Structure formats: structure tokens, C-alpha cells
């Protein structure tokens, strides 16, 4: 597969704090990339930098060969990068269908859609995200699990090539997480590349083709899930130094 997104030496500082420092990695078309790291390691900042909500202080980001640093969020969305927010951002006061139709009427190919086509597209996406039966509800009446699905649906309605999911499984029950994983797998099968930020480790490891680990703003490790769970540095960052020494002593795996 071709390279979809190239991130090269990207840094983002807030005052003296290096939220992202010299990050370099590629995402290939069709992949599911897991992005993990402890709280404050710069995962959400990285997403914001890619989508143009923040502008990178240095470095280059290329999407399908085009430099996208400095472009505004709506332009980047129209190029084909969609996202969800960790703190959900639904359109309160509108129905679920209207929320998703808004995505379908704008986004990458929304310009060519009539209102009717937009609503049809919205229905399709709602079926994909399994909330089609809630389409006439106001978003303020939804459960957290449904709002998270709505956020995926809104982003998917903009016809992205690359979808960035920021903790869409946080606060869900095990059953709901399984559902979310199935939805993500289905989206990936449709040819959409995904970058999934998640704290639910079991979930990330289950679906990711590759995993990126951030630690204190720096790229700590990148590789397939099996390698990542055995990486000493990663274990240290997540479980602490003591755990590593204890594990060594006991000689266990």
C-alpha cells in the first residue's frame, strides 16, 4: 500500500512544554494504527496537529503527497481527514440524523450532494454505526455509548480517507467496546485508514496492525502489537520500573 500520511520531525510546544517532540512516522493506506501512551504523553495534541486544530511549530506533515501544515481544520477535513473528539462535540438541539447529515452535506464530497442525497448518506452511515434506530432522537437524550457512535458516524459521513478516533471507547461497557471494535473493523474493510487513540489496551492490541507509543511527547516505540507488549521501555512507562525488575528476577514473561 502507498503511504497516506507522512509525519516528519513534527514538534508542538505549549510554552516550555514539548507536547510533541520530533515525531516521525508514516501511516500506510488501509492500516489501523493504535496510538497509545500514558496521560499527557501528547496523543490528543498529535491528533490536533494533524487536523489543523493546532499548527505544528516545526516539521512537515504530508497527506497523499500534499503538505497540510498551516491549513485550517475545514480544509483538511475536505482533503479527507476526519476525526472525533475525546470530549464529544455533537450538535445539541439537532436530531441524530441531522447531526450526521451535516457531515454528509460538507466534508470531502458533500458539495456534490443534494439535501436528499445527504440524508440518504446519513442513513447509510447510521446503519454502519448501528444507531439508525435512534435517528430521530435529539442528541441530548442519547447515552454516552450512542453519542460516541454518533461521533464516529458524523466523521464517517464526511467520506474520509483517514479517520482519527480519539478515545471513542472510554467509558463504555465490555459489550459496547466489542460493538465499537466491530464497527471499526468494518470501517477499515471499506478502505478507510484509521488512527485509534485508546486507553483500553486489550482493544487497541486486538485491532491494530501497528502501534505507536508516545511518552512525554516523544515517540517511544512503533511496531506490531506483539512486539510492543514485550518492549521493556513501554512496560516501564506503563507499569513502572519496579515491575520490570521484579519480572526479570522471577524470569517470567
Amino acid at each position, binding site marked *: 500500500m502507498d503511504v497516506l500520511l507522512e509525519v516528519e520531525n513534527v514538534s508542538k510546544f505549549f510554552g516550555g512544554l514539548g507536547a510533541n517532540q520530533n515525531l516521525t512516522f508514516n501511516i500506510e493506506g488501509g492500516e489501523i494504527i493504535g496510538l497509545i501512551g500514558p496521560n499527557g504523553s501528547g496523543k490528543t495534541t498529535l491528533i490536533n496537529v494533524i487536523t489543523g*486544530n493546532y499548527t505544528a511549530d516545526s516539521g512537515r506533515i504530508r497527506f497523499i503527497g500534499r503538505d497540510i501544515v498551516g491549513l485550517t481544520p*475545514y480544509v483538511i477535513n475536505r482533503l479527507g481527514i476526519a476525526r472525533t473528539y475525546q470530549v464529544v462535540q*455533537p*450538535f445539541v438541539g439537532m436530531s441524530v440524523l441531522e447531526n450526521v447529515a451535516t*457531515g454528509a452535506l*460538507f466534508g*470531502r464530497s458533500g458539495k456534490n450532494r443534494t439535501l436528499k442525497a*445527504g440524508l440518504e448518506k446519513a442513513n447509510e452511515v447510521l446503519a454502519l454505526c448501528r444507531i439508525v434506530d435512534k435517528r430521530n432522537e435529539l442528541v441530548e437524550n442519547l447515552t454516552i455509548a450512542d453519542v460516541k457512535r454518533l461521533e464516529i458516524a458524523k*466523521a464517517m*459521513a464526511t467520506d474520509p480517507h483517514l479517520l482519527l478516533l480519539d478515545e471513542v471507547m472510554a467509558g463504555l461497557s465490555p459489550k459496547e467496546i466489542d460493538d465499537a471494535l466491530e464497527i471499526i473493523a468494518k470501517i477499515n474493510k471499506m478502505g478507510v485508514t484509521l488512527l485509534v487513540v485508546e486507553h483500553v489496551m486489550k482493544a487497541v492490541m486486538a485491532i491494530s496492525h501497528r502501534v505507536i507509543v508516545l511518552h512525554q511527547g516523544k515517540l517511544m516505540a512503533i511496531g506490531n502489537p506483539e512486539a510492543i507488549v514485550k518492549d521493556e521501555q513501554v512496560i516501564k512507562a506503563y507499569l513502572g520500573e519496579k515491575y520490570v525488575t521484579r519480572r526479570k528476577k522471577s524470569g517470567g514473561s
Partner: protein
Amino acid sequence: MIMQEKWRVYLIIGVFLLILIILPFMSNKYWIRIFTTIFMYTTLAQATNILMGFAGLVPFGNVVFFGIGAYLTGILMVDFGLSFFPALIFGAVVCFAFASVIGYPILKLKGHYFAIATMGVSEAIKQIATNIQITRGGMGFNLPLIPLKIEAAYFFFYFLMFSAMVLVTLATYWISRSRIGYALRGIMSNEEGAKSLGINTAYYKLVAWGISAFFTGIAGGIFAYWYAYIDPPSVFDIGIAVRFIIMLLLGGAGTIIGPFLGAFFIELLTETIWSKFLFLHLGVLGAIIVLVVIFMPKGFMWFYRQRFSLSALLENVRKGKL
């Protein structure tokens, strides 16, 4: 069931318009004048609704377009020899353009800051109008009198304001159903989220304010020709803006019918109270507005939808309240 409801709405609108069309033939000049004023305020409230009701921005200085529309219509007629309708349209187009130019920086502001900035613009333009030659400054500006008999002039302005009111309502209805409406409601609800869905929020806010300014300018132009005399304090009066914004809030911002309810309610109430309580009328009017705002904070239309709509009724049945 829903089809029936739709036809009932059409029927009510039809009867309402028919009454307004017949009304001037059945009543006297006094009432024709009052209703022309009501139509003017409905037009202004509806024009403001486009920005305030859908995009959630409160343009307190929108009256600036009323003044610009009024003055340009006058100046183009007197100094440039245009006839009324071309002058009116040209003035409104300038309002659209002016909103786009000042909107570019101002629409980046949010909430109260936007409201205050528009007031600043309005006051600045008022000062300019008071101090330059072409507006005849503070002396005021005389427009040519309409070459019609008095009776006919009353009818002319009545139906002209009526048409402006219908046109701006159709425009609002169209916007609410179009992709602009989706964009604006997205912006009102969550601007950050809207941007992430590929919505050029700055552009859609400009379009909304431009259309709002256009119709506000139309109302101003008609007003100028109707009164035949304008001066800066009367057409750039923030009080006018406060009035149509109160009407919009009372009726229900973000609904098509709201501006009608608000304008008709306030104007007719003012008339009745004024004739009944000559010395206390502003106090009584204020008290009524306070009561309405306490009990229906989102306006008549939202109150109605909450309490009396079919879906609300079913909701109450489900909850066992009925």
C-alpha cells in the same frame, strides 16, 4: 397524521395572509399605519433571525443596515435621480456588501463580544452620518414625497412592507431547509465540531449576516420613503434594534413563525396599553415582557412546541403524566 398537520399549517398561514390582504380595505388609516409598522418590525426581526436564530450570534448593531438602507435610498433618489425601487435595491445590496466587509473581522468574535462590536460599528456609522455633507448631517434628510394620493400612499406602503415581510420569511424558510441552514445550526451548536466536518464557518456566517443585512436595508429604505424625513438619531437608533431583538426572543429565535408572534404581540400590546394606561404604558409593557420571559424563556414558539405539539403530547402519555 403528519400530513394532516402539514395541511393545517398551510391553511392557517393562508387564512392569516388573506386577512392581512383584506384588512386595509376594511379599516381606517390609523390601523393601516400600525400594521405597516408591525410588518416593518416583523421584517427586521426575521432578518435578524437568520443570524441570531440559526447561527446564534446576536447582532445588536444590526440597526446600522436599517440606517444605511434608509440613507442610501434617499441619497440615490435625491442626488442621483434614481427612482425608488432601483434605489431601494441598490441600498440593500450595499448593506450586503458592507456586512461582508465588516463581518470579515467582526464575525471572528463570539458571544457578547460580537454583540458589542456590532453596536460599536452602528454608533460609528451614526456619527459619520451626522458629520458628513452628503447625508445633510444632523439637519436630517428630506426624501421626495410619493406622487400618490394620501389614501393610495397608505395602501402602497402597507403592501410594500407586507411584501418585504413575506420575502424575508421565504428567504429564512429556504435557508432553514438548505445546506446553509445545516451549516449555521452546526455553528450555533458547536463551532469547533462544525469545522471538523469540513464546514467553512467564517464563510457561512458572512453569508448569513449578508442576507440579514440585505433585508434590514430593504426595511430601512421603505421606512425612509414612507416617512419622507430621516435623521441619524432616528434611523440609527439602538432602541429599534433592542425592540426587534426582544420581539425575536419573545416569539422564539430559530423558528419561522417566532418573529411574527413577537412583532404582532409587542406592537399590538403597545397600542392597547398606550391607549389604556397613558402614563404607565412603558412600565406595564416592561412588566408583561418580564413575565413572558420568566415563563417562556425560549419564546412562544418553543413553549408551544414543548407543551402542545403532537410529539410532546405522546411523550407525556408515555411518561404517564396524562
